[in-house]
């Protein structure tokens, strides 16, 4: 169990540091790349608690697809290699305050709630996921396809107007 | 200057020559005063000299009346005798113009030092026409042909670069070959080839024997 704790510690530290860089760095591409590290960390955490399928999905969807989407988005909205838009808000201070307050509340709520409950890292197999998905959650599953279709059509409509104008 | 032709060729060539005369008449007809002179070498070519103002008119006429849709080329000739004595048999290296004013022009005549030459061709009649125009010495400029033949663009840029002739209405008169800060117009006769000025050309030192020819 020690090894897992150490691994968790390392991963968590890297994730928090990277996440902070995501929201503070001035270079958008760097932000996206830091986001990759956070996402990879999340995937590692999933694996650490035995959520194998979701962990790999995290890699495939987030790193393999969503990040690419982000990078495309960035590269298509930047006009110059070395000119960075002002990314920081004037109201930085209130934002810090809000975030810290929120954090304080959450920590307050969580810190003693589930003391010393060790998570069971027994892997949950893909078959288990599948069985649950195709019995209990069949309606949401079909709903997902409609959601994706809607998103697709919406984005295409937006993009189409683009092409026209 | 006339070409003598052997019997069989003369008959075959007579037909195009009649057409050439016909073309010359048409040009004179289209341009009126603007058409100054013409010259035909049987079996070879047709030269027409026009005034500078009729330059674009001549191109239009050739295209529309003669069917010369093919823009062959455009250039200029500097009729100044070379001031450097570059004739191969001359050993002297003389920077002074040898015979000032003794410019003699070619076919269809000419009066000034610089003369524009353009050649158009008819891909249906398979005949070409060479049109010339004199440029006054003080004002080296002429109207552009781009509206009539789009292909004239680069040729005119070349003429601008090589002779310093300005084309009125040309959208983009820049050097085409040489670096931007190149000085001089290379094809003018008074442009020196520096490498040759360092070491003059030795002239003919060796003559090759042709096959079957005896060394006398």
């Amino acid at each position: 169990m020690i090894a897992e704790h150490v691994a968790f510690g390392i991963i968590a530290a890297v994730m928090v540091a990277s996440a902070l860089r995501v929201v503070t760095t001035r270079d958008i591409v760097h932000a996206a790349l830091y986001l990759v590290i956070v996402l990879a960390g999340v995937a590692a955490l999933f694996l650490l608690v035995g959520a194998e399928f979701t962990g790999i999905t995290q890699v495939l969807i987030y790193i393999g697809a969503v990040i690419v989407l982000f990078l495309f988005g960035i590269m298509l909205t930047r006009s110059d290699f070395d000119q960075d838009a002002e990314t920081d808000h004037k109201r930085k201070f209130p934002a810090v305050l809000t975030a810290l307050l929120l954090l304080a509340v959450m920590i307050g709520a969580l810190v003693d709630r589930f003391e010393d409950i060790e998570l069971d890292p027994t892997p949950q197999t893909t078959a288990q996921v599948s069985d649950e998905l195709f019995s209990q959650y069949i309606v949401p599953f079909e709903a997902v396809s409609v959601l994706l279709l809607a998103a697709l059509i919406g984005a295409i409509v937006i993009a189409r107007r683009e092409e026209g104008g | 200057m006339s070409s003598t032709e052997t019997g069989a060729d003369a008959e075959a060539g007579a037909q195009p020559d009649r057409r050439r005369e016909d073309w010359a008449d048409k040009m004179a007809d289209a341009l009126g005063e603007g058409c100054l002179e013409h010259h035909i070498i049987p079996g070879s070519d047709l030269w027409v000299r026009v005034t500078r103002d009729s330059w674009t008119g001549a191109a239009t006429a050739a295209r529309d009346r003669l069917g010369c849709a093919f823009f062959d080329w455009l250039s200029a000739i500097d009729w100044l005798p070379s001031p450097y004595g570059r004739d191969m048999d001359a050993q002297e290296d003389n920077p002074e113009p040898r015979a000032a004013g003794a410019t003699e022009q070619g076919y269809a005549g000419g009066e000034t030092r610089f003369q524009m030459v353009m050649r158009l061709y008819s891909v249906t009649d398979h005949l070409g026409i060479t049109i010339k125009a004199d440029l006054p010495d003080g004002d080296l400029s002429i109207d552009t042909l781009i509206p009539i033949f789009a292909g004239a663009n680069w040729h005119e840029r070349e003429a601008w670069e090589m002779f310093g002739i300005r084309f009125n209405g040309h959208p983009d008169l820049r050097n085409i070959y040489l670096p931007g800060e190149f000085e001089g117009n290379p094809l003018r006769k008074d442009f020196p080839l520096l490498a040759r000025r360092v070491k003059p050309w030795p002239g003919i030192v060796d003559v090759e024997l042709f096959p079957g020819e005896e060394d006398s």
Partner: protein
Amino acid sequence: MSEFLRDYLLVALFLMLAGALVFGMLGLGSLLRPSRPQPQKYITYESGVDPVGLGWSQSNIRYYVFALLFVMFDVEAVFIFPWATRLEAYGTFGLVEMAIFIFILALGLVYAWRKGVLRWI
């Protein structure tokens, strides 16, 4: 540590192995390679002339549209994978469910097709 985590520890080790290879080789190379700055060595390569106007055009929206299509279908694939492993157990029911799922998403593809988005304008 469980067998499961050991497997993934190996994955992590491989990740580091790639890093070790990269940094090891570059470190080794730094012993061997020269470094000779020349005035124009660090200029961006552009066929031998000065790079002009670094602007990158933003109208390449089609890259984005294709990426978007990809994301949607990638998500779909993620749902197909678990289904595929267990199809035998689900039988016709699973088949029909998945057929509907694929059909609905294929509608998206058809829509994109009909709208000419796939034409790469």
